């Protein structure tokens, strides 16, 4: 009986089938030409995609040798393996004049590769040209074929249909680059008419009325007749709204799907067909604890997934348990109960037994010898209760699990392969009811070390260089994590040296000594590849030399993906490209020299930004009003408009106009920037013209017309130097000071100055720094020789440092020092410096004991700030967490002032008289920070310990002028003592410094 087949009977057939083509040698006698001498080898066409040297190197066929058909086949295989041929035939014919010789001709057809893809034509967005080009899914550098073109066309058609265009015209146009075998494709697209929605068809068990569903889709104009145009986003949003409609009705399992869009060419309308299964109403409740529907929605994924299954319900159970535990109910029990649908209603109850409230007051860690407890705590989620941030501590089973994994992972990666971490929770810890403690008991086990490392297979690179980078060397801890790091290190070295097929294997065996291993790394280098040429495409107006200067790959260099990415980043950094794609052409081809492609899409040449905002601050009253020299609350709306012209002349230069108009300021700013000036990557030259009319300092209005040229030099990642020449004309108006001084300070003044400076920024995060430092120095001189009407030297320096204290606290401090020193002046040195050139300080970003720009000397008559020639500020902050992870607090202390001159800088605490402003003002306070993606939102409340008091003139500017040269004698009733308030508050974005 032969009921059961023999094993591998089926294999045998396959073996037989597959084996019959084993590539063995063809016999010479299969062709009459075999064995004849090859007189010459030709290629048709003569221009081949491979370089001549490479071509003849890979061919086993040689002239003046007998023709072997096996060599012919191998020649075809090798040529084709380069990936640069679409078809190869080998023709043989007798040589002219000698019948014993033959001429071998390779008839070849080269492959074309995908180059730049662009889209133009009459296109109605959406989709825009970029989306259409992406939809084609033709990948840069990949072989191009008619099949792929048809697929690309289909992809575009599909995209157009989803956007409501059912009759688009798509015409591909080709531009061939025979040198690099690239074909650049331009899809000329005419969108045609966009379809309008028409009454959708609702199929299935609706439960809701079609009219209400139609209303939910919002595909019909609400107040107008007719239907909206079809777009993908409208269709998607419409379906989402229908789902939400069912969700609002409690039908969480409702299935809503778009079955089809039926387009009617005659009417130009598309009818959506929706398949709906409403399902029963699902009622989800929490029993045993108060939970809002919002909280349930957040933690029970049934709402989000639109389906009810045991897995999701169990996930909701876990989420709810973690939620209660994170709120202090560490003993919470959560179960769920599902009741079948009755009368179109199914019920799901989460049964919650919260148990008593707990506080996590202690975390004990024992058994750790290799790592300190502090090191372990840094990696843990569990947190003991604290006054503000976590009032009941942070605890949940999920956190506990993560902490155990985190500790185990840390030990394992350091060679403790047998580590175990057990946890124990103790209730009523320390005899206090509801206080709990969690204990982590660590059994480290032995540390496994590497006894020896044997690295095999390094042949083309320097072995010492690679081994020096490895961490799993003799004597070091042995762990899979370290091996993984070493693998990445080794492969990175190979990839960056042009070995794209390098692979890594490893193994180990126990060494002679206990808890030690002999480790072996085996590297398969694969072939090394080099750059044949770098080809760029997609440039329309950009000059090629601008791109070429930034290419960090040259012909003959190892083909390094790292350097390819570096070049890509540099091209992006030019700021003129919306997209820079890079690829190796023909990546799978077996050829050592490859084209590296950069395909660019130039960004829009103009960029426009508009902004609206408002400023709330102590802004002061009308220009003629001398009330409240210390400032009073005000409101200033603001509008801004920025226009940039990018990539000017195709050289990457940019011209930018910025403007800002508010009730306090009118600013116009035009700059012309030459990045990478003179071909130097670290230089940038900027020409700027500026008009600024401002009255943010309440004492005067300032008019500034300025031109400047600045060369900035980035000497390192953290350090930038700049050199600047500035020429400006400043004038002031609406001056609220003693009439005696008005003629002097209101004269327009021209200032020509040169300055230089340095910025050092080594902060970990410029928006919200935790460690590092930030230094700025700026030294300038204004002199008659530079076109200035005043001579002075100006210096301003700043040093800020940030220190983390433990895991949660940051101590930050900032010191600023500035001095303006006039020389070759006549008269009062204090008046030698024009008002707008002086130092003004105070406010949210400097001394918080003052309102904005209210620090320093003041006019003895009106009490308005005059600015000073010296500045000294010191700020210190302790930044701490407050509530949860996103709300923090700040305790701060600010001290300093603006002084009349350098000589008058003083640390005195008390104001000597009402005309003494050269003393140090101290302020303390606290603030709240709310973390947002654009930086912390800040509210600071400051208490100034010794704010200045001063005379102020109660009246209008006309009153002041009418009161003569000595107003307080003429109108003593109007000269009253005033002062800066002890309390100041500020609301803004970003840390103070």
């Amino acid at each position, binding site marked *: *009986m032969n*009921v*059961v*087949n023999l*094993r*591998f*009977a*089926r*294999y045998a057939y*396959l*073996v*037989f*089938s*597959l*084996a*019959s*083509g*084993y*590539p*063995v*040698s*063809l*016999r010479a*006698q*299969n*062709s009459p*030409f075999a064995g004849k001498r090859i007189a010459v080898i030709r290629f048709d066409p003569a221009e081949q995609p491979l370089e001549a040297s490479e071509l003849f190197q890979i061919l086993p066929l040689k002239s003046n040798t007998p023709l072997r*058909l096996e060599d*012919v*086949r191998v020649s*075809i*295989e090798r040529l*084709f*393996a*380069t*990936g640069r041929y679409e*078809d*190869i*035939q*080998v*023709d*043989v*014919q*007798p040589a002219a004049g000698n*019948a014993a010789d033959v001429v071998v001709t390779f*008839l070849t057809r080269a492959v074309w590769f995908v180059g730049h893809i662009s889209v133009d034509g009459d296109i109605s967005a959406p989709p825009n040209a970029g989306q259409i080009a992406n939809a084609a899914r033709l990948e840069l550098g990949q*072989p191009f074929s008619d099949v792929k073109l048809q697929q690309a066309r289909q992809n575009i058609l599909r995209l157009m249909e989803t956007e409501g265009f059912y009759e688009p015209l798509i015409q591909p146009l080709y531009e061939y680059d025979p040198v690099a075998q690239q074909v650049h494709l331009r899809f000329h697209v005419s969108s045609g008419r966009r379809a309008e929605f028409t009454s959708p068809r609702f199929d299935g068990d609706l439960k809701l009325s079609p009219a209400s569903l139609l209303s939910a889709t919002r595909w019909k104009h609400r107040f107008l007749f007719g239907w909206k145009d079809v777009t993908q986003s409208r269709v998607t949003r419409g379906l989402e709204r229908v789902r939400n409609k069912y969700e609002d009705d409690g039908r969480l399992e409702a299935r809503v799907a778009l079955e089809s869009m039926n387009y009617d060419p005659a009417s130009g309308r598309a009818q959506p067909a929706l398949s709906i299964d409403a399902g029963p109403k699902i009622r989800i409740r929490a029993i045993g604890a108060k939970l809002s529907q919002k909280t349930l929605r957040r933690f029970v994924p049934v709402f989000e997934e639109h389906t009810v299954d045991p897995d999701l319900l169990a996930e909701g159970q876990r989420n709810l348990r973690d939620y209660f535990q994170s709120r202090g109910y560490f003993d919470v029990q959560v179960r769920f109960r599902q009741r079948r649908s009755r009368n179109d209603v199914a019920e799901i109850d989460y049964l919650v037994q919260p148990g008593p409230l707990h506080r996590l007051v202690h975390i004990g860690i024992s058994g750790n010898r290799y790592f300190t407890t502090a090191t372990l705590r840094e990696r843990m989620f569990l947190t003991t209760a604290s006054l503000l941030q976590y009032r009941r501590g942070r605890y949940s089973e999920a956190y506990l699990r993560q902490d155990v994994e985190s500790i185990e992972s840390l030990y394992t990666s350091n060679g403790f392969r047998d580590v175990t971490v057990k946890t124990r929770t103790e209730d009523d810890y320390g005899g206090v009811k509801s206080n709990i403690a969690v204990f982590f008991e660590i059994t480290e086990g032995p540390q496994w070390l590497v006894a020896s490392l044997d690295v095999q297979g390094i042949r083309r690179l320097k072995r010492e260089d690679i081994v020096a980078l490895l961490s799993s060397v003799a004597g070091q801890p042995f762990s899979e994590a370290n091996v993984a790091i070493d693998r990445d290190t080794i492969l990175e070295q190979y990839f960056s040296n042009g070995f794209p097929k390098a692979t890594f294997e490893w193994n180990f065996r126990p060494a002679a000594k206990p808890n030690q291993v002999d480790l072996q790394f085996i590297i398969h280098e694969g072939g090394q590849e080099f750059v044949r040429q770098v080809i760029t495409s997609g440039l329309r107006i950009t000059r090629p030399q601008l791109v070429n200067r930034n290419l960090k790959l040259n012909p003959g260099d190892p083909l390094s993906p790292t350097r390819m990415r570096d070049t890509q980043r540099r091209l992006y950094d030019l700021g003129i490209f919306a997209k820079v794609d890079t690829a190796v052409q023909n990546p*799978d*081809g*077996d050829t050592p020299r490859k084209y590296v492609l950069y395909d660019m899409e130039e960004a829009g040449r103009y960029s426009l930004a508009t902004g609206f905002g408002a400023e709330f601050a102590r802004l002061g009253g009308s220009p003629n009003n001398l009330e409240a020299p210390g400032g009073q609350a005000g409101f200033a709306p603001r509008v801004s408009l920025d226009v940039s012209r990018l990539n000017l002349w195709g050289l990457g230069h940019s011209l930018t106009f910025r403007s800002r108009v508010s009730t306090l300021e009118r600013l116009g700013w035009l700059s012309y920037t030459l990045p990478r000036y003179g071909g130097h990557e670290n230089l940038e030259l900027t020409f700027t013209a500026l008009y600024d009319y401002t009255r943010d300092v309440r004492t005067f209005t300032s008019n500034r017309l300025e031109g400047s040229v600045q060369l900035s030099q980035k000497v390192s990642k953290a350090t930038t130097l700049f050199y600047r020449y500035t020429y400006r004309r400043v004038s002031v108006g609406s001056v609220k000071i003693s009439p005696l001084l008005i003629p002097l300070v209101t004269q327009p003044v021209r200032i020509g100055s040169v300055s230089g400076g340095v910025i050092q920024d080594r902060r970990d995060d410029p928006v919200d720094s935790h460690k590092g430092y930030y230094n700025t120095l700026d030294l300038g001189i204004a002199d008659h020789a530079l076109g200035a009407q005043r001579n002075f030297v100006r210096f301003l320096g700043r040093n800020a440092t940030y220190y983390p204290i433990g895991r949660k606290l940051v101590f930050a401090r900032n010191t600023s020092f500035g001095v303006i020193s006039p020389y070759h002046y006549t008269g009062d040195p204090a008046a030698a410096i024009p008002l707008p050139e002086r130092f003004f300080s105070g406010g949210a970003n400097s001394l918080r004991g003052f309102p904005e720009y209210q620090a320093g000397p003041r006019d003895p008559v009106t009490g308005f700030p005059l600015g000073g020639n010296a500045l000294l500020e010191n700020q210190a902050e302790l930044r701490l967490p407050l509530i949860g992870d996103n709300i923090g607090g700040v305790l701060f202390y600010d001290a300093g002032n603006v002084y009349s001159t350098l000589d008058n800088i003083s640390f005195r605490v008390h104001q000597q008289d009402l005309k003494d402003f050269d003393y140090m003002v101290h302020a303390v306070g606290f603030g709240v920070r709310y973390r947002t993606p654009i930086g912390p939102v800040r509210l600071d409340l400051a208490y100034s310990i010794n704010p200045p008091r001063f005379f102020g003139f109660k009246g209008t500017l006309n009153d002041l002028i009418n009161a003569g040269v000595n107003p307080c004698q003429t109108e003593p009733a109007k000269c009253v003592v005033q002062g800066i308030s002890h309390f100041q508050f500020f609301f803004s974005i970003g840390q103070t410094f």
Partner: protein
Amino acid sequence: MRTRATLLILFAAALGAPLGGVIIDRVAVSVGTSVITVSQIDLAIRVTAFLNGEPPDFSPASRRQTAGRLLDQLLVRNELQLARYPSSPEDVAARLFERFRRDRFAGNDANYRAALARAGLTETEIKAQFLWQITFLRFVDARFRPGVQISDQEIQNYFDHTVVPAQEKAHPGQKISIDDYRDRIERVLIQQRVDQQLDGWLKEARSRAEVRFHEEAFR
């Protein structure tokens, strides 16, 4: 005069024309950057015919069918290379070859040589083919066999629905025990499952690869 000139041109053209130029090999199927040439297809047909003891069939349909088999072979080879499968021992292949020669030609070396010559093949080609057989069997065993598990229920089902009816047909009334067949049934089921997996893998490998048949090569 015109006639003489025409004859002169024709003569000159004849002298300058290629004398018997012929395409001796070309690409028939491409898979990515790998190829199957026309000469490989011809050889495969001849080897198949030799092993089957049949005359070779070089018809377009046969050539296309052979190309399809070679394509599957190429995919397996690529996988072998990619996954670094160990090479197969040549002595096993040599034993298979010797058995084939003994069985087919009853140990008559002259007959065997004559058959080889008629087929236009060499012994090296036949031996290489048996080596491939071993390589392929090992690949299938290593790649697909470990994932196949046969349950007792499946064995029982096969016994009830296949073995027992066949037994009844062959020997009516004779009782058989599943224990006598268990191992063999398990082997068959494993083989079937491995076959399915191999077929699926080949199908998927074909769909992943960029396969192109050069139609001109099959005309």
